């Protein structure tokens, strides 16, 4: 009788090691947690050799750079445009973006909305840390009312607009097959977030149209909380503003309305 060890959890083999030994994120940053979820799903679906990932510019960028997966990096805010072309030209089964909330819905609002309107058969994974992490913690579209950032030193107020609810909003577009919002602040939420990602990828495999999953992540240095307090902030404040769940889940988009001879 001996004891056998079976690895049941730990970093995916798709993280390129040891060239990039250390995850290039701040202590307590949850973006790599989401990165890991994506890799697990891609592996479980057996797609890592076929997939092409299209990162935006932000802290998220540095994750796909250390994945063993073909990748096309882009200009800030343009992943949806780039992914559109990559998908149409290659017809690869899985083409998805990885973007920050600013990348996806500030500078990227046009590309994201337009890809959704075209019903592009791509998936957007957007990480909502409610600020611009990379550039030092400025307001982002998902910054919540009252939140202090380097460009809302008194807290986001009247003149800075209201937080964006991207999955809800895009759910209202015809060409969109799937939208959801997840978080990784608890193991249970993390597992749910993973299911959302899987479901979104499946939609793409089914050719159902555009899919998007937003995932809320902690950003300790810019929130000025300890990592543990960040989780509390997510739980008490962010989830009150941004409910988790699926907001659209359809199999196929509607049928044409005939136009009389022109």
């Amino acid at each position, binding site marked *: *009788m*001996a*004891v*056998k*060890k*079976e*690895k*049941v*959890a*730990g*970093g*995916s083999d798709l*993280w390129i090691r040891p060239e990039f*030994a*250390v*995850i290039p*994120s*701040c*202590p*307590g*940053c*949850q*973006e*790599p*947690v989401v990165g*890991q979820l994506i890799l697990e799903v891609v592996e479980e679906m057996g797609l890592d050799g076929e997939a092409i990932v299209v990162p935006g510019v932000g802290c998220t960028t540095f994750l796909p750079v250390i994945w063993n997966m073909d990748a096309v990096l882009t200009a800030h805010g343009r992943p949806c445009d780039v992914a559109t072309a990559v998908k149409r030209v290659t017809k690869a089964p899985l083409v998805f973006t990885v973007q920050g909330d600013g990348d996806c819905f500030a500078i990227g609002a046009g590309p994201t909305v337009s890809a959704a309107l075209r019903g592009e058969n791509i998936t957007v994974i957007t990480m909502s840390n409610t600020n611009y992490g990379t550039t030092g913690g400025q307001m982002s579209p998902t910054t919540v009312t009252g939140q202090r950032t380097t460009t809302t030193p008194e807290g986001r107020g009247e003149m800075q607009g209201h937080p964006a609810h991207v999955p809800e909003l895009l759910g209202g577009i015809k060409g969109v097959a799937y939208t959801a919002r997840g978080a*990784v602040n*608890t*193991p249970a939420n*993390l597992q749910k977030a993973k299911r959302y990602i899987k479901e979104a990828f499946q939609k793409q495999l089914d050719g159902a149209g555009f899919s998007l999953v937003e995932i809320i992540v902690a950003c*300790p240095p810019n929130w000025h909380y*300890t*990592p*543990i307090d960040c*989780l509390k902030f997510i739980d008490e404040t962010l989830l009150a503003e941004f409910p988790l769940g699926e907001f659209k889940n359809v199999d196929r988009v509607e049928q044409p309305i005939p136009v009389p001879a022109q």
Partner: protein
Amino acid sequence: MPRGEIVIFDQHCKGCGYCAKFCARDCITHPSGRYSPQGYILPDFSAPDKCNACGICAWMCPDHAIDVYKLVEAEVAA
């Protein structure tokens, strides 16, 4: 016999403390008093007996600094 075992890679850890917070069986202590070369406060796998290899500490670890192993009694190869 303990049912699980975790390995913490000190050189990857950035000391966030998520692993300790979410281990439902309190197997992990953080802060532990140990520091990494970069000055991060390391966690300790302080109560290995209680570990059931649920994997949660690894899921929650942003830096993939934990591997979780299930310990199973195995016949010695025939």
